[in-house]
């Protein structure tokens, strides 16, 4: 370990901050724009060209908004909650490759590192909800914890099917294994289950139980004002980035687009297509009820994902080229 490697890594980490900020800004604008067009309205329009400066205005407003800490809240965890939600999502970004081997840390267990970081997110949400000393946010926190752990399992089991086919947990290897045929073609059931669970893990609509406005005032962040609320939103958008990046890497061939030479451009393109798809889902579907959502995971997705794993196992044992 010398100073040069350290400096490179520091620059890389700062670059990740830039990616995170850029993604939050782009997605904030793009989501409002896309949902607006689904409603046949133009979305942000007059703040800059087609409202492109809207996220900056929101950011400035949140920065200059008073930061309320309720008297009865647990002050330490109230401060720490958004950090616990943002930082693991940010650390998961560090192992996600943009090009072959081009990541801050292209570790051999990349896939499981990402899942480990995603498992910390429920802690963040639970802290956010619990620390405010508010009944709505406590219910939101418990729901969020229950939802996130329920959808964790099918996600992991489906990812095991990918590992089985690729024979490696290094994300670069998994992508390179799909240079001709994507795993989306080889394991379509896996893609479906993974997509559903990934949307649920990001707390996006139709699975946004933790912040169900119609039932719990604003869910887990009822007591959060100003930039702390902005950080929760940032955690959500970062989780969305990580989740869709995983979908692209595991199923949609990463930087490969078959007849064309591999390039990070394809990866970024697919990334934003997947995120737009998630926004499209948000604009289309209603929120699931909490009991149907839990039962969907335990009664349908887990057996289906186990069946998918066994199917992949049988195919991999029978056909060598699978």
């Amino acid at each position, binding site marked *: 370990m010398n100073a040069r490697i*350290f400096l490179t890594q*520091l620059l890389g*980490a*700062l670059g990740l*901050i830039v990616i995170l900020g850029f993604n939050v800004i782009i997605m904030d604008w793009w989501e409002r724009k896309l949902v607006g067009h689904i409603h046949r309205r133009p979305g942000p329009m007059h703040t800059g060209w087609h409202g492109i400066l809207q996220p900056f205005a929101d950011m400035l407003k949140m*920065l*200059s*908004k*008073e*930061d*309320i800490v*309720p*008297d009865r809240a647990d002050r330490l965890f109230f401060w720490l909650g*958004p*950090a616990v939600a*943002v*930082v693991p999502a*940010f*650390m998961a*970004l*560090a*192992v996600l490759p943009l090009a072959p081997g081009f990541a*801050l*840390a*292209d*570790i051999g267990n990349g896939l*499981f*590192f990402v899942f480990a970081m995603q498992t910390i997110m429920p802690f963040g949400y639970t802290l956010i909800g619990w620390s405010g*000393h*508010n*009944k709505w946010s*406590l219910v939101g926190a*418990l729901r969020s*914890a*229950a939802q996130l*752990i*329920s959808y*964790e*399992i099918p996600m*992991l089991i489906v990812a*095991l099917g990918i*590992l*089985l086919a690729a*024979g*490696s947990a290094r994300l670069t290897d998994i992508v390179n294994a799909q240079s001709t045929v994507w795993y989306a073609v080889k394991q379509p059931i896996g893609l479906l289950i993974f997509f559903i669970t990934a949307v649920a893990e990001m707390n996006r609509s139709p699975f946004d139980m933790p912040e169900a406005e119609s039932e719990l*005032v604003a869910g887990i962040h*009822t*007591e959060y004002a*100003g*930039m702390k609320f*902005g*950080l929760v939103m940032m955690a959500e958008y970062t989780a969305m980035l990580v989740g869709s990046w995983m979908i692209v890497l595991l199923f949609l061939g990463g930087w490969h687009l078959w007849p064309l030479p591999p390039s990070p451009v394809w990866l970024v393109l697919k990334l934003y297509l997947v995120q737009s798809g998630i926004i499209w889902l948000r604009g289309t579907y209603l929120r699931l009820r909490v*009991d149907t959502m*839990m*039962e969907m995971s335990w*009664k349908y997705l887990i057996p289906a994902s186990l069946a998918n*794993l*066994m199917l992949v*196992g049988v195919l991999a*044992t029978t056909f060598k080229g699978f």
Partner: protein
Amino acid sequence: MDTYANLAALVLAGLVGLAFVFALYGAVKLLAPSRPYALKNATYECGHDPLGEAWVPYRLQYYAFAIIFLIFDIETAFFYPIVLVWRQIGTLALVETLIFVAVLLVGLLYAWKRGVLKWD
């Protein structure tokens, strides 16, 4: 060496992320007005006086789900090594995993039958 470099990179990423969050907190401290008073800092309960404690005991069902989650989570941890070397082992791996999954499914079915999975 490479492992340590990667580990250092991950730790560094975590620290930079934390620094980013606290830089934002610092900016808020600088830019935002702050006029706290008792009514403002009271718990928000749709405009009414806050009633009682919010940190109350909650339902046991969450615990049941947590236990089942633990079982399945450990199961995936067990699967992880066998899946990575699946192609070298071949049919034996398939048979072993099938038995393992069958045992797990029996457990899930038991929980299902006892009504643990029903959320009410």
